């Protein structure tokens, strides 16, 4: 059980790092286009579409589970100071369970969308060239699914250290 939880946490972390790779790729790809355009008057016409559909979606969706495990999600924290440790734990667990349900719904609907886009073979027409982009629809459901699992694990982790501890270890070890 513990090893399985740790594996999930490591997977979340890895997807987060893939998000970081997307950031690097975005920087290099856009810069390369700017350089080629100004130095050689050569345009890679596909850059805006690749940036929007692949790098941005990978960056936005893949790291979600990792963000949840790192507690990076933003809340207003209005009542935090007034809660006892016990009340806070109850609140944390219910919020995490609710988050899991919402991510689950997002995952479910977005899996459906990704599969429909695949069936159609969604593409964009760029000048005289057709670029297939249906693959890019999978980042969202993958990210949401793992985030749903992560929130479920975190909810139980708040109750049972046997689940909570390995998550903490996996996320914070370097």
């Amino acid at each position, binding site marked *: 059980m513990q090893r399985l939880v740790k594996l999930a946490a490591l997977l979340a972390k890895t997807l987060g790092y893939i998000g970081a790779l997307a950031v690097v790729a975005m920087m290099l790809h856009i810069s390369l286009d700017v350089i080629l*355009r100004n130095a050689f*008057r050569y*345009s890679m*016409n*596909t850059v*805006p*579409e690749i940036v929007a559909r692949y790098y941005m979606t990978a960056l936005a969706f893949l790291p979600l589970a990792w963000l949840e495990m790192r507690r990076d999600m933003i809340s207003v924290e209005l009542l935090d100071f007034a809660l006892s440790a016990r009340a806070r734990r109850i609140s944390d667990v219910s919020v995490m369970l609710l988050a899991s349900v919402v991510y689950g719904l997002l995952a479910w609907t977005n899996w459906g*969308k990704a599969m429909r886009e695949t069936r*159609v*073979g*969604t*593409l*964009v*027409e*760029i*000048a*005289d060239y*057709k670029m297939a982009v*249906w693959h890019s629809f999978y980042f969202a459901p993958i990210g949401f699914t793992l985030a749903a699992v992560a929130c479920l694990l975190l909810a139980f982790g708040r109750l049972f250290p046997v689940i909570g501890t390995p998550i903490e270890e996996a996320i914070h070890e370097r």
Partner: protein
Amino acid sequence: QNLLLAPAAPGPHPANYMYQQFATFLEEESGGAMTGTVLGPEVVSLPQMKDALQTGLANVGNALPLYFAADFPQTGVAGDLALLGRSPHAMAWAMTEFGVTCAPCQDEFKEFGAVFLGAGSSDVYVLITTKPVRSVDDLQGLRLRSGGAPYSRWAENFGATPVNLPVGDTFEAMSQGTIDGTMASIVDMLSYRLVDVAKYVTDVPLGTYHVTSNFTTALDTWNDMSLEQRTQFVKAANRGDPQLTDRWGFQLPAEARAAVEANSDIEVITPDADFLAASEAFAAADVAAKAAENPLSADFAALVEKWEAIVEEVGNDPEALAARAWDEIWAKVDLETYGQ
């Protein structure tokens, strides 16, 4: 019955104008039994149209087939003949008749979860640039935004570089010199504020944007209608269709022309005869090549010829054209089985 209508465009845009008119027509034709609520682009935007129609977020929507190129490979061939466009209303009605009568196109709409009820067209595109284009030679090495493959072929043929760019970025790209201009409707002068950055308009007729589906109706909504309701609905749509062309192809271009003429920083260039002849020759060759490739393209080209003659005869009045189109197109359609 109140229908959710999604033009996917903000107030001043021709699609929104057309939808406001359509809502009125719908009430008129149905004697008040059917009404519409026009949704803003913040509720349904162009890329969201397919999902919106399929999930019932909108009952009727402005779906651009070229935006969903993978869903509409056959319908889209009409767009390959963009350089054919010289008369906005003729292009719009040819597109409407093409969409209604072409069997593979009908299949594509069915698969999309919707019913096709007519199209509209832009005005004839021109060159809007920051450098003067008076002759073919002036095109050499220019970087021009292209809104589609035919325009890219035109630009490349004359030694310019077509650039793919989101249309909303045109203003910034032109003001910063990342592009030298755009092949577009003169309306973009106002709707994308190019009037602030452009220096020249070259009146070389390029072509039209006409692969539209104005009142794409969700299959669920269509199936729920009785034959009488469908007839009323199609009558309203048929009157609504030419409103897009009237707005986008005539009213707004007139406004944009006036704004350009009032602006002393912008010169309107009538290109020399050699340039015009070369452009027309390329357009004819390009259209002929595309029509030879695909029988559907040939069908569309024939319909353009047919409607150019009709528009020549009837004139540009939207209601008169709608009346004629009812006889030419919709009277021949069995609405009991249409779209099924």
